[in-house]
């Protein structure tokens, strides 16, 4: 005959094991879901090779309404187009950090860049870059200025840039900043001074 107190203890132990098992399974599932979610929101293009370089990127700081240069280490390929693309992505990477000085939507990335000639470049962005961009004149102009200035500082010789969203022209970034025009980098350089 098993004593009654022993039966109760065993029952409690079994119950504790069962509850712990359920909790562990739920935590595991949650982590898997988060990992999958993070993978889906990750940049669309895989990381490229190249040698690690220290470059300067112009970062927008919403709180100060300012743009400031920041050094970053990135792998930059020798190819000019790939170099331009990775340079732009290094700016967006700053905005994807947490906390972010200038939050952009998850999935905001550069799909591709094309040179129309040696001086004119088309930048094709992902849909979340524009669809999820916060609306506001200043916020939108700070994004474009930081991208264009960083690009011209690290990939010389580009004089005109135009932005596409998911391969198509769009009137504005999020209701304000012009995306129809070609941006002349010299004019943007003057604009950037206003944010210093």
């Amino acid at each position, binding site marked *: 005959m098993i004593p009654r107190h022993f039966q109760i203890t065993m029952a409690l132990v079994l119950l504790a094991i069962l509850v712990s098992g359920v909790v562990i399974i739920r935590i595991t599932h949650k982590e898997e879901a988060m990992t999958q979610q993070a993978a889906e929101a990750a940049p669309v293009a895989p990381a490229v090779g190249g040698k690690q370089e220290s470059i300067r990127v112009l970062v927008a700081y919403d*709180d100060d309404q300012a743009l400031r240069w920041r050094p970053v280490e990135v792998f930059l390929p020798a190819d000019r187009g790939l170099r331009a693309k990775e340079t732009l992505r290094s700016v967006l990477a700053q905005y994807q950090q947490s906390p972010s000085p200038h939050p952009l939507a998850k999935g905001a990335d550069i799909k591709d860049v094309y040179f129309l000639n040696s001086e004119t470049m088309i930048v094709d962005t992902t849909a979340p870059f524009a669809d999820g961009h916060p609306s506001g004149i200043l916020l939108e*102009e700070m994004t474009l200025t930081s991208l264009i200035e960083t690009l011209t500082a690290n990939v010389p010789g580009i004089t005109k840039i135009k932005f596409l969203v998911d391969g198509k022209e769009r009137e504005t970034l999020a*209701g*304000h900043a012009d995306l*129809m025009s070609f941006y002349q980098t010299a004019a943007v350089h003057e604009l950037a001074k*206003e944010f210093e």
Partner: protein
Amino acid sequence: MRWSKPRFALAFAALWCSMAYTGATPEKQLTVYSAQASYSLPVPERSGKAYIAANELLTPLGATITHGKGKEWKITVNKAEARLAEGKDKAVIRRQDKALIRSQQVDLGGAVLVEDGRMLVPLDSALTLLGQLLNTAVDFHQPSRRIFIGQSFTRFNAEYKNGDRPSLILTFTQPLRRLDTNHAEERGALFTHTNKTTLIFRKDPVVSDVNKQEFGAGAIQSMVFAEENGSASITVTGNTKLQMIRSEDGKTITLQPEAPPLAAAQEPDAQNTPTAAEGPRRTSEFFVMIDASHGGSDKGASFGGRQVEKDITLRLARELRKELEERGISARLVRDADIDIGLERRAEIANEQRAGIYVALHAGRPGKGVRVYAPMLADPSQAAAGRFLPWESAQSGALSRSRTVAQTVAEELRKKGMAVSILGMPVRPLNNIVPPAIAVELAPEGGDIQSLESPKRQNTVAAAIASGIAQIRGQMGGRP
């Protein structure tokens, strides 16, 4: 014996209906809109219940109808069939879905009636029958008796254009059938009265999310959209008779006063000799075109809760108009209602009406105070060729005057104790505007979102902008 009661009831109902029905009452209609066809059907009443002829409803959609056993009818569309029987209030619908055959009994809400070869089913069952047989999205606007099959909607955007000759531009997503004054029942109609113009759309699947828009107290005052008896209508009310202009592609209808006001035909004022960039002035009056940014489906920036940029800018625009008029300066609003207007159209309105100054109003994060933007050409190398200006740099001839306006307005805002920054930026549509143009962006004061809607703060900003414009209107072509 079992069927005698319904037959008797049917005969009585038919007699009663034929006696009660008079030509004075418009016949009840149901209209069906689909990719294949748009058609209207009569909706007879039997025993107080609205009925529809199932064969007339389904045949134009490709259905074949055959007699089955006894009083049974079989309706076949593609891989689906429905079996209905006279006197029964249930139908059996069978649908082949890949290798599966699904069978389902549906309630028709009333007995099936057969009259002169027409199989009448309760109107309420039309949605079920169509949805089950066609296996596509069916939308039934029941009060107005309009059925839309497969998302076959024609939506429209109403754009009110203020000016010497105000107009209401209705832009539809699909070409419309030609409206006619003689064939109202067949296609659609246009009715004009002294102060009311009604467009009736019977065969066009016109729908709208907005039922009423107000435009002020001028020649065009309001627009009402309604659906009734198998058709839709747009009624425009004003203080004069309107004429309708239909575009070649059938997608745009413009309503405007029949006789243009004299001002529209005036010669350019000698004192306001136009520059090559600006072209001739339509009127000698100097006025400020105020553009409350965003509107309609474009909400602009969201500030949490129900605060959105489009509402803040409209209130500020009305306040600015009031402040300008108190200083003796005419002002017009690009939009005075919650309506969609594209950025390019905003620029066209300002350019066509020869505004003296264009002021776009915005509200947005981050920071505090007010930001005043002057235009900046993204690509200054685009130059004017004679009298023609590239659209993307139409502002090129007025850049320096725009900066003057921005600086003067900013100075007035500072005098009111506000934190102000002036920036030159390629904000759309400033670069497409021919006259001097600025944008003013109101930021939350100290992070307080509520401050964006504060009447006191809006009044302060509006008064400062108006004071700035009053100071420099002499330089901008207006009377000092």
